[in-house]
């Protein structure tokens, strides 16, 4: 492959992924509203389009047409930068998540990942850490006490949970012996899913993922009753929409990451034995990836509409006193396993 071809292929991949992300984020919002409605014996959005399916577009149009208000006390450049940062980071993270095995298309062998980076996981962790800045910036630059409190809470929370997240990932890396997402997926062939091998790590990672994405029960940065929306209190129109999209994009990434790290990625156990054609297998595997991801997203939403919000001290003590030790225990457990069976 020439350099031009690589550029074109990569460009097409980016296009597909970004479009997919935007669409799925919109519909994730739709499903969030629908599922919350069902949980509460309501109907949910049903006016725009059949069963309200066009609701996300109506929402986007509404947000686009709204006035963009920047408070007088705000630091304008940073106030503008923050939502862009949030969105770019959220979408950028997706570059290293593989959604299927390598396939032959139009005579090219194409990896179903935008960038096959050999330190992919490090890249993800790095970007999510930068994501904190977007929220902190928005909180600080708004010039509002609610935003500031939301921003401060968010950074403290993210830093705390990143530790247990990091240690959980370390467990996965011990097995895969690589930071490359494709290798991690490959290391979970058959039923050797990390979720089964290291359940404690799985649980700590999922809980940390909830905290990292600011989802309930850990949505303290937003906490409407106390902070009127937290870091995005002073945002409106498309800037608000950017935060909104980023939040849901983060959810998708978290699910994708969990699938990749713990649920065997695109792999369907023992599918090789079914003797299907390579194309069909690849299709089923891509499908499997999305089913796993969908199930996780449903879980995210389900939890949100079931559990109440933590108190801040509870959040911190859970992070430091429970999740952090548990992830350490997991690390030791994996190390022992590796020592015994390797």
């Amino acid at each position: 492959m020439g350099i031009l071809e690589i550029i074109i292929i990569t460009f097409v991949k980016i296009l597909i992924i970004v479009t997919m992300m935007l669409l799925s984020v919109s519909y994730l919002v739709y499903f969030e509203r629908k599922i919350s409605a069902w949980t509460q014996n309501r109907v949910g959005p049903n006016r725009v389009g059949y069963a309200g399916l066009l609701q996300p577009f109506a929402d986007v149009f509404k947000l686009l047409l709204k006035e963009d208000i920047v408070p007088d006390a705000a630091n304008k450049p940073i106030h503008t930068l923050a939502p862009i940062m949030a969105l770019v980071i959220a979408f950028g993270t997706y570059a290293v998540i593989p959604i299927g095995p390598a396939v032959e298309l139009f005579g090219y062998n194409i990896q179903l990942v935008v960038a096959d980076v050999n330190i992919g996981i490090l890249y993800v962790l790095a970007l999510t850490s930068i994501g904190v800045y977007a929220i902190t910036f928005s909180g600080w630059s708004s010039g509002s006490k609610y935003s500031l409190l939301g921003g401060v809470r968010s950074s403290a929370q993210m830093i705390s949970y990143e530790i247990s997240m990091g240690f959980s990932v370390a467990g996965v890396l011990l097995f895969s012996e690589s930071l490359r997402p494709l290798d991690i997926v490959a290391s979970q062939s058959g039923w050797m899913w990390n979720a089964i091998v290291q359940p404690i790590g799985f649980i700590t990672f999922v809980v940390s993922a909830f905290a990292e994405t600011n989802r309930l029960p850990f949505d303290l940065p937003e906490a409407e009753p106390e902070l009127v929306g937290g870091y995005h209190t002073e945002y409106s129109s498309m800037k608000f929409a950017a935060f909104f999209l980023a939040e849901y994009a983060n959810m998708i990434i978290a699910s994708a990451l969990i699938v990749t790290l713990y649920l065997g990625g695109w792999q369907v156990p023992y599918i090789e034995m079914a003797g299907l054609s390579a194309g069909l297998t690849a299709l089923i595997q891509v499908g499997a990836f999305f089913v796993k991801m969908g199930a996780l997203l449903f879980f995210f939403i389900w939890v949100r509409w079931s559990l109440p919000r933590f108190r801040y001290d509870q959040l911190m003590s859970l992070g430091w006193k429970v999740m952090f030790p548990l992830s350490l225990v997991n690390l030791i457990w994996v190390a022992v396993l590796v020592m015994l069976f390797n």
Partner: protein
Amino acid sequence: MIQKKRLKDLTLLEKLYIPEIVKGMSLTFQNMFRPAFTMEYPEVKFVPPASYRGRPVLALEENGEERCVACGLCARICPALAIEVQAAETDREKERYPEKFEINMLRCIFCGFCEDVCPEEAILMSKDYELAFSNREDAIFGKDKLLTPVSKLKDRIEFLRLYK
């Protein structure tokens, strides 16, 4: 910090909260398959029971006379000062009638005190809850909008006689 003593210390299992989380999540999951309570408003309209306090109206007898004698008690009791009554003299047996009877629906709080205090059973809370205005003047209901035939208010009158 003052540590409040619990009546009973939580066991480890209770401290973990996991059974409670599972219980809660199973409840919400089950709920997803239950039918919705939603009434889809403009197509399906809620018909309130007789005890409902919608917008206050004035009873109009079958012979075309209003019951109201403009005593002004409703205007006096109204905590929101929504009602304005101007009395005048008529040749009828009840020599007093409301020349002007206005309820400012922007002020009305639907407490039903006016109905409670009315000595003539003339002001009644109807079932009408569809009240939207585009300007302040439209929200002031005069006799033209308030007078409602008694036949339409039968179940409210019955309810009042039973429970008031």
